[in-house]
């Protein structure tokens, strides 16, 4: 390391690794992980999100979880929260649907209306 620019490079990469601790993220994916969600395969859904996001090197996406959301018949349920936009809730998610949501919604910003079960708060 010889210049401040070198340092900056390391810093940006390291900040990426630490973004869970309050860095800036563009999109937050919240997977409903209550008992019924897990029973309906929410773990697989979350795993797919984590893997796909890592594979695509999407640096500004945060995946987290929440408890029962009350939409038991539509589990697994996933919220996509974007700063300044209404919350989009997808239901009946599967790993295949997750891949589509990532490509369409998260990467290209086009909501996959077929899977949407609720919008707003």
């Amino acid at each position, binding site marked *: *390391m*010889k*210049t*401040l620019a070198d*340092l900056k490079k*390391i*810093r940006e*990469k*390291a*900040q990426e*690794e*630490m973004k*869970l*601790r*309050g860095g800036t993220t563009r999109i937050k994916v919240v997977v*409903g*992980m*209550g*008992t019924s969600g*897990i029973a309906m395969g929410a*773990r697989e859904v*979350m*795993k797919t*999100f*984590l*893997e796909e*996001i*890592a*594979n695509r090197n999407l640096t500004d*996406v*945060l*995946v*987290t*979880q*929440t*408890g029962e959301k009350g939409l038991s018949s539509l589990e697994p349920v996933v919220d996509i929260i974007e700063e300044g936009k209404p919350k989009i809730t997808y239901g009946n998610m599967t790993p295949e649907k997750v891949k589509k949501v990532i490509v369409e919604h998260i990467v290209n910003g086009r909501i996959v209306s077929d899977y949407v079960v609720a919008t707003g708060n």
Partner: protein
Amino acid sequence: MSLKRIDLLICCGSGCVSAGAIKIKDQFHSVLKDKGLTNEINIIETGCMGPCDYGPVMVIYPEGVFYKKVTPEDVEEIVEEHFLKGRPVKRLMLQDEEEKNYLTNKEIPFYQKQVKVALANCGYIDPESIEEYIATGGYEALGTVLTTMTSQQTIDVIKKSGLRGRGGGGFPTHLKWQMVHDNPSEEKYFICNGDEGDPGAFMDRSLLEGDPHRVLEGMMIAAYAIGAKNGFFYIRAEYPLAIKRIKLAIQKAKEAGLMGENIFGSNFSFEAEVRTGAGAFVCGEETALIHSIEGQRGNPTPKPPYPAVQGLLKKPTIVNNVETLGNIPTIILKGAEWFSSMGTQTSKGTKVFALTGDVRNTGLVEVPMGITLRELIFDVGGGIIGDHKFKAVQLGGPSGGCLTTQHLDVPIDYESLKERGAMMGSGGVIIMNEEKCMVNVAKFFMDFCVDESCGKCAPCRIGLKQMLEILKRIDSGNGKEGDIEELQRLGETISKLALCGLGQTAPNPVLSTIRYFRDEYEAHIRDKSCANKVCLDLMHFEIDKSRCIGCSLCSRKCPTKCISGSREDKYTINQLSCIKCGTCMDVCPVKAISKVPGMHPDVKAKREAEAIKQQNQDE
């Protein structure tokens, strides 16, 4: 590779480690492995998070959920409920008096009045990872200084910030630096003083353990400012984790090219190494510390010459405290104005304190200078444990003094504390409730100083010993008129004549307790009574016959067999043989035995008779 979704920060400061943090960390590793979650969750060991009383503590991001007093048995539940189902475990959260749960670490009142500068990363990053330190802006200050500023400009920034030494004395940091900077000597040295020795103080240890790179960066900036090429960390061997972490930090900085030759492409080259001390209190004194590094016996020498003129190996040397260095990178990055906007007229910035004693939130805190003692003890510290009242606070360890309720609204800065007989010291704050006997407290600190006196100068070696003897005499019921005045006379003389800071300040606890609690000393001497029932010779145990049920348990358990009686007559203590072990009080099923202040009349009479006998013999 998979994206992580949870950062689990486990506090691995010494307090939490001794409460079992390492076991918990291992347990997390094994449970996560069993459940196949290792890919999703980061387990990070951090430095001290502060609220040591609640240890082991942890914070779980992204939510920032704070858990206290976690046991290995709780791990399964945390993983099952929180990590898998997203339901934080309520019973492990911190609660307020109305039993409301504090969900995240930001909501906890303990953190509300704190401003973290030196401790900014403590409990937030992995201290063994240079990348995490860099992520928080680490080494940016060093790079900026080396590539855009001259050494004089660096000193000017520190001068403008008003930073003063955090080790105790409060000497303006820039003045020392300027002296060495102006010295034409080719060889200069920089020493970081990590020989923290005050009982109940753990600020420097926590900073070295929790954010070693910050201290290292601070040292390099300082070394550049004064023109030193070599630095030493002097850390006591009792701090193995701090030593390990700082050594690792040095190694990582070298690997990253942040230490060594021509750092950041400049002319500045620097090497640092760690020297361990054997744990003598006097080695925190700068001249003694320098001798210790040189391989000599750790004795102080008279100043002048000051180390800034003739220090290590007779070369100009700066000795700065750990916390002082911890402030420097942030001052450079955020500017002198930002730093000097905090604090009072003469004391700028923040100060780290270690809260201990009878306070609810024992732990490590950092508050702006100028905060009142009341805010520090009651808002940040959470007040006194149990139903007790605040009595006194000892600031600055064995060199400092006691302050009382009347001083609660005193702002904490170097001058205000000194005026009232205490001192900032390195930041140890021992809080005492109304059950403490101040004579006993003074004796404790004096005992410590006598133990730690190096013996080089007579005032300290002989004078402190005399003071301790008088205190012991008072404590054992043999105090006499004039003892208080004699203590004051000795104390004031030693303050003036002792060679180094240790001796000069050692009488402070005695002088300040006499100043504010003279009535307690007088009661000990004249009435032979310790109102708080702490000094064993000046209190006794008594059995309340109206409550005694004559079960004989006390009599059977008494190690000196000094309790006698019967079911009908109830039991009494033979005061002359009682050794005041308190066993009888502990075993009594009906709580009929209590402590009573004052020497028992029987003991008093016996002592007087013995004194007369002795006098007759002498004649």
